[in-house]
């Protein structure tokens, strides 16, 4: 088993299909952590954060192995957990950073709070609901003593009207929504990470992440990775080879100083 990006050994946590199934159900990394935490089958107040960090990192590693495009916040969480792990394992240091124990406690609190809110949501929606379990008068009579004004307008109507108005007005303004493209920086980082695992010549295409994210993202990822190979070759970190025009581009880690 190879060492993954985060330096922990990963056992397969799930088959790719299962993994995909589970991933689609998440509402972000905290949600994923909570579900992983439940695997420990203990009260959340007694959960092992160290073990949880390992579970999460293994999960992320597995997702990347089956070439799932992970959103940035999942990777941020992974990096943070790796850091937390190091702080938990290394004896307390004299610095301004919060201690590993404090960080772990904060995470545990956040998980408990999220769990509590999920429970509350369930309890709330298990209540008899108006129009579904409990009913109001089916044929109300036109006697309305509550309102002085005859018009029924809610705050929602008012805000919606203003929102619609602004939307029409904004029609002429170019508002560029963030487009999800693969950045050069990400590609450089990704390639640098992956190069360690590719001692021999490999095609550039084999370094690309999966096709998830749509054709635009795939194309931009190809462009970004190509630019990244040039960047890294310039920095002397990798070697490039192409057997002819439009032929596949091969790359491997630079071996010139032999510190492999």
């Amino acid at each position, binding site marked *: 088993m190879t060492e993954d990006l985060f330096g922990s050994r990963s056992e397969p946590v799930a088959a790719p299909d299962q993994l*995909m199934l589970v991933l689609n159900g*998440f509402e972000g990394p905290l949600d994923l952590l909570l579900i992983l935490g439940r695997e420990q089958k203990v009260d959340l107040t007694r959960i092992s954060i160290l073990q949880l960090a390992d579970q999460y990192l293994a999960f992320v590693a597995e997702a990347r192995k089956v070439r799932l495009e992970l959103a940035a916040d999942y990777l941020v969480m992974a990096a943070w957990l790796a850091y937390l792990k190091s702080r938990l394992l290394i004896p307390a240091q004299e610095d301004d950073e919060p201690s590993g124990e404090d960080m772990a406690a904060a995470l545990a609190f956040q998980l408990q709070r999220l769990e509590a809110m999920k429970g509350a949501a369930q309890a709330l929606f298990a209540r008899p609901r108006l129009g579904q379990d409990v009913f109001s008068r*089916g044929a109300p009579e036109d*006697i*309305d003593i509550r*309102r002085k004004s005859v018009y029924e307008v809610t705050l929602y109507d*008012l805000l919606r009207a203003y929102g619609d108005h602004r939307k029409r007005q904004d029609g002429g303004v170019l508002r560029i929504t963030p487009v999800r493209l693969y950045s050069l920086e990400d590609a450089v980082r990704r390639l640098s990470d992956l190069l360690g695992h590719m001692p021999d010549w490999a095609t550039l295409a084999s370094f690309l992440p999966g096709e998830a994210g749509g054709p635009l993202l795939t194309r931009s990822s190809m462009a970004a990775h190509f630019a990244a190979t040039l960047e890294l070759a310039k920095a002397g970190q990798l070697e490039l080879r192409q057997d002819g025009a439009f032929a596949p581009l091969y790359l491997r880690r630079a071996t010139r100083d032999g510190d492999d």
Partner: protein
Amino acid sequence: MIKEVTNAEEARMGKLRLLEALLFASADPLDEETLATRIGPEVGALLDSLRAHYAPRGINLVRTGAGWAFRTAADLAPILRQEEEVSKKLSRAAIETLAIIAYHQPVTRAEIEAIRGVVTSKGTLDILMEHGWIRPGRRRETPGRPLTWITTDHFLDHFGLESLRDLPSVEDLRAAGLLDSRPVLLGLGGTGEDALVSPADSDED
């Protein structure tokens, strides 16, 4: 013996309660046949006993055409109707005008028209004023000294706002999803808000 009586009485009360709830929640009168499928063949006797129970009260069980329905007691009609008002829907133009006055006040009629891009019909401001939602503010110290419009305390009251400062800002509206500008660069495909997009459903936009 006593136990049996109690059980029978309980079963009867259960059916009576269901009958009561069904008649209450229905938008239209329910006919005996339909009720019998839910309650059983004794529905006729139960309807009679329910009618007797409600006879002296403010709500009566009445037979209308082929069906049964609860109605407020007929003798109360004159008292009930005292303040009867038919609620109407406010026109889109009026709601929008009200929203613009709320957000841009003090604002002149000409400014409202400039903002909306259409002429304000005569009745719109009248209706809003009639309902006590807006009132004339100070005159603008510009040529012609046009009248400005502002919202009233009743406006805040009606919409449950404590002050005008509590109106959501444009950014708040956008964040809440009430003002979603369409992505302009549609050709570029999904913006991928989802954390993880599987290849299967990634072409949703």
